[in-house]
């Protein structure tokens, strides 16, 4: 049997190696996360507070949707059971979804959407920086493309946190409330699940301690400019990455999967 290093690096038709195949649940988790966040952002389409921001949110939703599709397609390949991107997105139940809890939280007002986006962008951007120089070529290629988009996302959401924090009394009150409600979901992002721990031990997934530090530093900088306080001593919720979700995900999936569930097995 050939060892991995003797295999052609990027033969598209070649079956994934055993090492690569282990990545399946992680790639699926990234796919679910990007899809759920894209879905939430797309709910704003046509209802944004300013036409320009309606456009921006649709744009960011499209980036996440594109990223989700790349991950799903790769996940389908890694799994090797003939499932497609749509099978993975539309025919799995809430308990099979692996996104962290943060991204499934409802849009709320614009402040909630911004804070949710900001927290995730801080993680996402720094994660992609690591993945793009990681050991898996396909994941690195997706990250390379997505990190350019993520750099714009983190700029956009950081600027809005600053505007809302250092804007009017009302915007400050709203953004503080959003932080108060969402902060408990921020810890899960950098708390590795059992699956992630195993992959980290194998060197396939980056260490989250460094990412957590980079996130914290960015958040501290932005909050300072926004004249907002970083919450302390908050009890952190988790479970999404193991399929234990908040009640919101079921409704989201009912809508997302409606057509595929109502008319099984058809082409659209």
């Amino acid at each position, binding site marked *: 049997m050939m060892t991995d290093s003797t295999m052609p690096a990027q033969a598209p038709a070649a079956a994934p190696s055993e090492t690569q195949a282990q990545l399946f649940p992680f790639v699926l988790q990234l796919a679910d996360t990007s*899809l759920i966040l894209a*879905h939430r952002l*797309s*709910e704003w*389409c*046509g*209802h*944004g*507070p*300013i*036409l*320009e*921001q*309606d*456009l921006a949110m*649709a*744009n960011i*939703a*499209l980036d996440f*949707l*594109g990223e*989700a*599709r790349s991950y*799903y397609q790769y996940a389908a390949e890694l799994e090797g059971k003939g499932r497609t*991107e*749509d099978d993975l*997105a*539309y025919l799995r139940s809430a308990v099979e979804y692996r996104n962290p809890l943060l991204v499934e939280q409802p849009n709320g*007002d*614009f402040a909630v959407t911004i804070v949710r986006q900001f927290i995730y962008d801080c993680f996402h951007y720094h994660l992609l920086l690591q993945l793009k120089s990681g050991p898996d070529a396909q994941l690195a290629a997706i990250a390379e493309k997505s990190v350019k988009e993520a750099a714009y996302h983190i700029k956009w959401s950081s600027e809005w946190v*600053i*505007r*809302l924090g*250092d*804007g*009017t009394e*009302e*915007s400050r009150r*709203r953004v503080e409330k959003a932080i108060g409600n969402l902060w408990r979901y921020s810890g899960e992002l950098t708390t590795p699940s059992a699956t992630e721990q195993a992959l980290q031990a194998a060197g396939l997934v980056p260490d989250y301690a460094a990412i957590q530090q980079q996130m914290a530093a960015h958040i501290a900088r932005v909050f300072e400019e926004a004249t907002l306080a970083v919450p302390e001593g908050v009890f952190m919720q988790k479970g999404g990455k193991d399929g234990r979700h908040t009640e919101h995900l079921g409704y989201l999936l009912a*809508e*997302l999967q*409606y*057509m*595929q569930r109502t*008319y099984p097995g*058809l*082409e*659209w």
Partner: protein
Amino acid sequence: METLELTQEEQFQARIDADVRIEPKDWMPDAYRKTLIRQISQHAHSELVGMLPEGNWITRAPSLKRKSILLAKVQDEAGHGLYLYSAAETLGASRDQMLADLHSGKAKYSSIFNYPTLSWADMGCVGWLVDGAAILNQVPLCRTSYGPYARAMVRVCKEESFHQRQGFEIMQTLCEGSPEQKAMAQEGLNRWWWPTLMMFGPKDSESPNTAQSMNWRIKRFTNDELRQKFVDMMVPQAEFLGLTVPDPNLKWNEAKQGYDFGDVDWEEFWNVVKGNGMCNKERLQARVQAHEEGAWVREAALAHAEKRKQREAVAA
């Protein structure tokens, strides 16, 4: 004074007749300016309100690819709204005022968006029929006499033809699919056919603004001419798809080399214009709500920009 005014007006008409574009700083008759502001802002409002019926299916699109295409399409509509508001601003209209007119019901938008989108086939019908009709209305506007409007329309039309193709492709996929999907496509066509014919506006004999707009070359074809063109274009496409156009009076007329077709239900047309369509209230409420709920965001952005300016002034 009188003679000077007349001369200006005559010069203006001479430029129009010579197909010279009118630009923002050129002299123009008040009525020309008003007509354009009305038309361009209505067009911008239609893009904005037009995001809603399709936005209604973004979260339920049946595949990731369709979801992505639909979201991109609705986003394009927001972009068209932006170009058009900017074009209207060159005539001295402010976006705030235009939006206030939309929200108060004073300004109109295309009535087609007051029809509900009830099935996935409606995403096909909106792209194929509604955008198809919009293209026929809009392509001549790329040559309209007012420069900024014409240039905005060149960009809009490029994207619209992509929208129409994706709509047709949705219909084609449905028509080549299961009997259930084909029935969905036919049911969609049944609901959208007549409202789409209404998009060209009232009959020429009842369209008071047409003559003046044609004379100013804001408009280049009459409502009835465009409606005929649309029917002639769409009937073969429906036949290709294997769908039946819901008009018992539809018949090829060899002599005129076009189709004869039944009369639009003008009572329904005027009803929807007057606000009695299925979704008039919902569409307007959705826009008003987005605007009102966004007020604090716009205020915060302004307040922050102001603080920043002051700090920079102090630092300088």
